[in-house]
């Protein structure tokens, strides 16, 4: 990437986030450039969701700074936040579609709210968006009538409704069968190419990560352990990275630290 010529779409600077005094993210810094699709990977509890929450303004970090699309993120400033929110999309893990509305109403909602377009124009736009994710035939269905894969696709269409320059995606493969995962990965790639959108994908699924991403960031115990290309991560010799990307049971990543407490509990009989 030619970092000197293009402006980064995301700049994270020395981010620190704590929950109840416990450091969940410490000293996270990275930059993301246009056309980059980064997979944020790492074992459970590593801080992936927390980092995502900070980047979309849903969690407020203790220290550090985040810039999105050239603007500093100020989660407490509603007006500034809303202006910025029009320029990025979020695809939630469970879809977070409004269950009282049909699929097409879900996709139409942000457009209707933020534009003066005529209803007919909105209708056509929504039909196009839904067609791109293969859901045109399901336009009038409610989210409850969709399969998991369809919900993710509808959520993608809604996240892309305002043609954002940046898309955040939480666990796109969670709860889907391998074929549905391949489908959603393919759609994400297509959206990235046709709409020139940079992506941040939080995922557990290495197969999916290799398919979507052209960059990998691995979080481990609240720190960035690895940042590089998919090829580099495979060549990385760090034992933690190796264990994670190959999904090995034995290695430096322990299963649960709380198992120690269980032993203690048994011994002390408390």
């Amino acid at each position, binding site marked *: 990437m030619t970092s000197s010529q293009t402006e980064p779409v995301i700049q994270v600077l020395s981010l620190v986030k704590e929950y109840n005094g416990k450091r969940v993210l410490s000293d996270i810094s990275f930059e993301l450039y246009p056309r980059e699709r980064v997979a944020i990977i790492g074992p459970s509890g590593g801080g992936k969701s927390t980092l995502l929450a900070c980047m979309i303004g849903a969690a407020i970090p203790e220290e550090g700074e985040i810039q999105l699309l050239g603007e500093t993120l100020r989660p407490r400033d509603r007006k500034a936040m809303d202006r910025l*929110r029009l320029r990025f999309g979020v695809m*939630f893990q469970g879809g977070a579609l*409004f*269950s009282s509305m049909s699929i097409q109403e879900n996709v139409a909602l942000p457009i*209707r*709210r933020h534009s003066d377009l005529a209803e007919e124009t909105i209708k056509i736009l929504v039909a196009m968006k839904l067609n791109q994710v293969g859901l045109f035939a399901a336009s009038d269905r409610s989210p409850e009538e969709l399969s998991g894969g369809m919900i993710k696709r509808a959520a993608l269409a809604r996240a892309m409704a*305002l043609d954002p320059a940046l898309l955040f995606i939480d666990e796109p493969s969670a709860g889907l069968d391998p074929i549905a995962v391949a489908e959603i990965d393919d759609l994400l790639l297509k959206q990235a190419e046709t709409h020139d959108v940079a992506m941040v994908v939080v995922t557990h699924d290495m197969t999916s990560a290799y398919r979507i991403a052209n960059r990998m960031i691995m979080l481990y115990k609240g720190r960035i352990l690895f940042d590089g290309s998919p090829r580099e991560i495979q060549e990385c010799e760090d034992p933690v990275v190796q264990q994670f990307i190959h999904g090995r049971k034995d290695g430096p990543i322990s299963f649960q630290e709380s198992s120690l407490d269980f032993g203690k509990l048994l011994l002390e009989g408390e």
Partner: protein
Amino acid sequence: MVASKKEWRFRYPLLVEQILRTGMMSTPIVLLFAGLVGIILVLQTAFQLAQFGRVEMVGALVGVSVTREMGPLMTAIIVSGRVGAAFTAELGTMKVNDEILAAETMAIDPIQFLVVPRYLALILVLPCLTTLSDISALVFALLTGSSLFDVPRLTFMGVAQDWIQTSDILVGALKSAVFGALIAHICCFEAFHLKGGASSVGAATMRAVVLSMVAVLAADAVFAYFTL
């Protein structure tokens, strides 16, 4: 602040939807409840009144107690259990499913989008429901009085008309609007401040219903004091 045209296009259908939903959800149960109360009031009092030879006064008794007190109160209680519970359950589920966060990330203010329509709908609908419940109670009281206690229908209506005061009906409507605001406020608040998973939705719903019933009764006591 004047809402722009695009904001109206966004808000108006939401309000209409909530009015229709709250209205349709509660009208049958409110009519049934009030009708039964009308019947009970007649059954409870007609016998005693007959002993004084004044059985035709049931019209006054039912008319006054329903318009002044029972109508607004029982309608609000039913609505907290029916509509208020639905508000908390629905919004609470949305909170748990990240739908409220999703609205925020689309720069859609969840208060404008989800709370304001429900608030306004309840403030508008509750007085109408109260009026309906007044009518239902009176109609069933009339039928009970005329069929079981031989009160001529015209007499019943005449007595009721003499005793029911327009001011009672107006105060009843005003009270209902205040009750509506209280119920909407408590039930939406509980949902928005819910923490945890699906199991906490049930607990929040129960708390919201109990709190709104208590709030309605307390507000009614305040009204009673100031309209002595």
